[in-house]
């Protein structure tokens, strides 16, 4: 990096300081995302239209809903869901940390969005979608595996954990319409283009569909988790896939969504 400007410009030190902490419970995760949001919207030149801030805001909204759900006894296995939430967020913070250190270890799924942080201006919807894509298609399966491993449990369909996991789809469904507003038709078109073989797309299915893919991927990784080579293979595969989709979302084609 040499003499060049720090990755996060004027808020670099603040972000480095924030990322030095590793949140260990859901209230702390929400707190972290809130602080991060305040810093991201100060990042020049885009400030309020920082594409990462678009994602971060959506993520904060969802996580706050999850936290409220935990307080309100919405889930059958809160231990599982709380840990999953923390593990899930840890991967987003890790990606930010790698990016901060200009590390080649930054997942490609994320760097395609991080690269756009300083411009040119991207539209909010595709930006948020690119973040959701990286977070769900790449981070989520691994967060699931780590969570099950630490709870000495495993990803089995039809369990309490699986039902809780699916309940998150409901939270997305509740929250996304207000963010998506009138862009639905374009979403639909975009998705049709990306997944020619899926013909039953309807309102709100993007997240549900990818989240199911993440669950299946977690089951796949689960089976090979003791084999470092196979695990690494999966990681690279998921990273490449998510990165390809992310780049597409952030391409001029993605702007079409807005």
């Amino acid at each position, binding site marked *: 990096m*040499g003499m060049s400007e720090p990755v996060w410009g004027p808020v670099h030190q603040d972000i480095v300081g924030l990322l030095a902490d*590793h949140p*260990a*419970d*859901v*209230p*702390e995760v929400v707190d972290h995302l809130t602080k991060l949001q305040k810093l991201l919207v100060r990042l020049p030149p885009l400030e309020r239209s920082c594409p990462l801030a678009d994602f971060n805001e959506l993520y904060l909204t969802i996580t706050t809903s999850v*936290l409220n759900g*935990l*307080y*309100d*006894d919405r889930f059958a*296995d*809160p*231990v599982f869901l*709380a*840990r999953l939430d*923390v*593990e899930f967020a*840890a991967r987003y913070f*890790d990606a930010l940390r790698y990016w901060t*250190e200009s*590390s080649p*270890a930054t*997942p490609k799924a994320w760097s395609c969005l991080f690269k756009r942080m300083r411009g040119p201006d991207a539209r909010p919807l595709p930006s948020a979608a690119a973040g959701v894509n990286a977070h769900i298609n790449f981070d989520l*399966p*691994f*967060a699931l*595996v*780590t*969570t099950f*491993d*630490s*709870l*000495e*449990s*495993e990803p*089995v369909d039809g*369990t309490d954990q699986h039902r809780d996991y699916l309940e998150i789809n409901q939270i997305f469904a509740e929250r996304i319409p207000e963010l998506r507003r009138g862009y639905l038709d374009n979403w639909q078109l975009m998705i049709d283009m990306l997944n020619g073989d899926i013909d039953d797309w309807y309102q709100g299915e993007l997240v549900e569909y990818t989240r199911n893919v993440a669950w299946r991927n977690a089951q796949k*990784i689960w089976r090979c*988790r*003791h*084999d*470092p080579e196979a*695990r*690494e293979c*999966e*990681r690279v595969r998921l990273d490449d896939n998510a990165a390809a989709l992310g780049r597409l979302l952030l391409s001029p084609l993605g702007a079409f969504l807005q």
Partner: protein
Amino acid sequence: MASDVDLVPLVGRADHLATLRSALLDGVGPGQTAAVFVTGESGVGKTRLLREAGDRLRVAGALVLTGACLDIGDSSPLHPLLQALRRFDAELTASHARTSSAVRGLLQMFAAETAGPDGAGALLERVSRGLHLIAQGRPLVLVLDDLQWVDRSTRQLLLYLLAGLGDLQVSVLAAVRAESLQGAHPLRRVLTELRRLRSVRVLDLSPLDRAGTEQLATAVVGAPLGAEAAESLWQRSGGNPFVVEELARDLREGRDGLSETLREVFLARVDALPQAAHAVVHAVAAGVEPVAHWLLAEVTRLPEGELIDAVRAAVAHRLLVGDDDGYRLRHRLVAEVLAHELLPAERSVLHRRYAEALTTATAELHQARLAHHWRLAGEPARALPAAVAAAQEAERLHGYAEAHRHWSAALQLAGPPAASADGGLDVDRAELLRHAAETAHHCGEHARALSLLEELAAAEDAPPACALHIRRARYLAAAGRSAPAEAEYRRALTDVDCTPRERATAAAHLAELLLHLGRYADAGDRAREALELAAEVEGSVSEVVLASAALGFSEAYLEDPDAGLAVMREALDTAERAGRPEDVACAYLHLAELLTGPLNILEEGVVVARRGAERVAELGLGRTYETRLLAIATNGLFRVGQWAEAEKVVAAALRHRPSGADAVELLLARCRLSVGYGDIAAADRDLEAVATVLAGGGARHVIPLLTLRAGLAMWQGRHDLARQAVQRGLTESRSDDVGILAALVWHGLRAEAEAHAARATVDATAVRRLREVAERVARKSEHAARPVRDVVDGFLALCEAEVSRLDGSDPALWARSVAAWDRRHHPYPAAYSRLRQAEALLARRSRTASAGRLLREAYQVAQGLGAEPLSTEIRTLAARARVALEERGASADGRSVTRAEPVGDELAVLTTREREVLAAVAEGLTNKEIGQRLFISERTIGVHVSHIFDKLQVRTRVQASAIFLRNRSE
């Protein structure tokens, strides 16, 4: 073997070395533990840092043991520790040191270990005992490289030692490759939890900066670099020291510019090797590192002289490093370069030679290695027996995860059923499946265990259907899938092929399962059925004990406690008559749980638990059942207010150095006492220890841990920390654990009330949420059994009263809480409620007389318990309200709960425990000696002594002793 690694100075890591020394040695008090996890990308210098730090710690007087984890995925359990011990043994042998016999003893212990109940926990204890002997009072440092490949047993051992359960001053320095932590590595979660602890640090090792890069390169080249070369080196290396060193070496030898990347650097070097050296490098790449010299000689088939020259060449080209225990590739990158160099056939020849050489000699990891090489040599028939032997060896060391992998490998090697049937391999496939399923069950691979069981059921020589039903039910229950587990037990009960014994087993287990599901009536019916079935079968004592316990609890919950108690007592008699130790122990355990749990007959429960503890110790089950029984006794004693006694019991139990959930129970019990005593340092240590153990798993204990953390924070005036702990607890608890949840909610509301009292900000959202949860708990407990409701009601009374503190505390609500806790005979919360009731009355300036009475009652209890922070609050309030706490002449009339003997006036202000300590002080014992005598920590004694000084208003031990002697009852 010479290796020039050490000739290059360590650049840019001086601060890290200083940090490591202070974190791992200088800053670690006697009996304490510490850990530093060094993370960083590969080549950043983790191994080098570990070595340098290890050397320095050794020079500073620590005993340093170093080992590395293996990436073959099927190494034996505890491999890094065994390796470290063997290395140390070799060093000692070379220097004829005396500790060698202790090391040999520990190594021998591993060799003699046999599988058995509680084997894993007992092994941990014996390992720590062995390490204790080896350390001989020196601080012990375990240095472990490549922790990303750590086996599960080693992981548990580290957490056990770091939690202080081994009673050993130990530090751990471990390196983890950052790349490996991406994805789904099990260490991720462990580190997330551990890095929050004060005794643990995670050190992220970054690449060198530009100045460091130049400094290192200059040292390698031996002269300052030109501006252009320096820039190019900086650009190409990114400050990675390994890359810097290799590129600088090329620069020195005039090969600069030929190789752009490190990969090319190594490729060029491999190409330049002489023929024999080429063979050596490839042989090491195919082996399991470190490759011993004799083994390398066998595999390469080079004559001694030629081999040594070849090794020298490979070392000189910086592809190989040698150490006392054998050869390794210089770096992982070398392995990656070499991977594409050999043809598959060439590689399998190397594996075959390894396997043949290992067959004739025993060595470290013998069977696992043998299986590995035969498999890669394409010889499944020869790999199979080695895999089976490796699995048995892993089972012997209680490494079920590793054993399971070996059994699975064996199954794969055996091929599909058809292959072995038509004269292929002579294997008992059903036997392999049985073992693979059972080990999968033991290491928590539930789905895998079940699918292996299905395979077994379909096999030709499958076990009878009934046995399969029972086993499937067991696996399903372990996986938390109660409904299908219940169905399987029911199938076993209706299966015509079942023997009466099997039917009794199924009914007893089903009863237990139903009990856990809260279906008490069903559980009772099944338990009665099991007892009837068991009566017909000679020797089915285990079934009788299990079914009686289920029946006893179900009756207790269904409000016929006497009937349940009678059944359980009879089961104990039956077990004693039959005489099998485990049955006797289980019967005692269930009886004690029944009494101290739902029946709330605490005094008797404590007596039973202690008698049982003695009995099972006689029967040789001290470590397992005695510890559990003593944990029950401790918690009972705490609740009835016999804290001094509880402290003794918990210390006695911890001397068994328990592990896992047993250890957590005891540490939490001891911490509860320390929080009550106001011994902040001791409480804090136990909380850290519990958190360390729980980092390895055990979600069940998280809420009690957080509740205690909140309780401790409140005595320290840290409502903010208490609030955080409770918030975390609320988001991680199941709402059906109403008792545990109710205690947590009370702590949350109390934190807000304390904040309000201290004129700090009250978190209105938190209050709203807590009240909602309290309402939910109340709703759920309406339908709960009476004993559950009783516990919850006490806490809910506290909750409601705390809420009133936010808005003019209501004495009537506190009076209700007093009544609820008095009814349950729990003096501590009752005394707390009396304090608050008095406070509320005084605030309203009404009925000062009853406030005075309440304060005196509360004070007397608090003093009797030794509950220092509570006593202090009472004293403060009494002083403010000018209430005299001690009535003239009435202070020593023996009303105190735990008072053992009448004592002189001046000592009346002391608690029982403090008097015991003072007696020992008067004998001239040091704090350490007193601690050993009373089974409590030296530090706790220090706290007691300072309380004694305060209360007696003296400054020296001599003055205190004088008062003691003057007042001693003759």
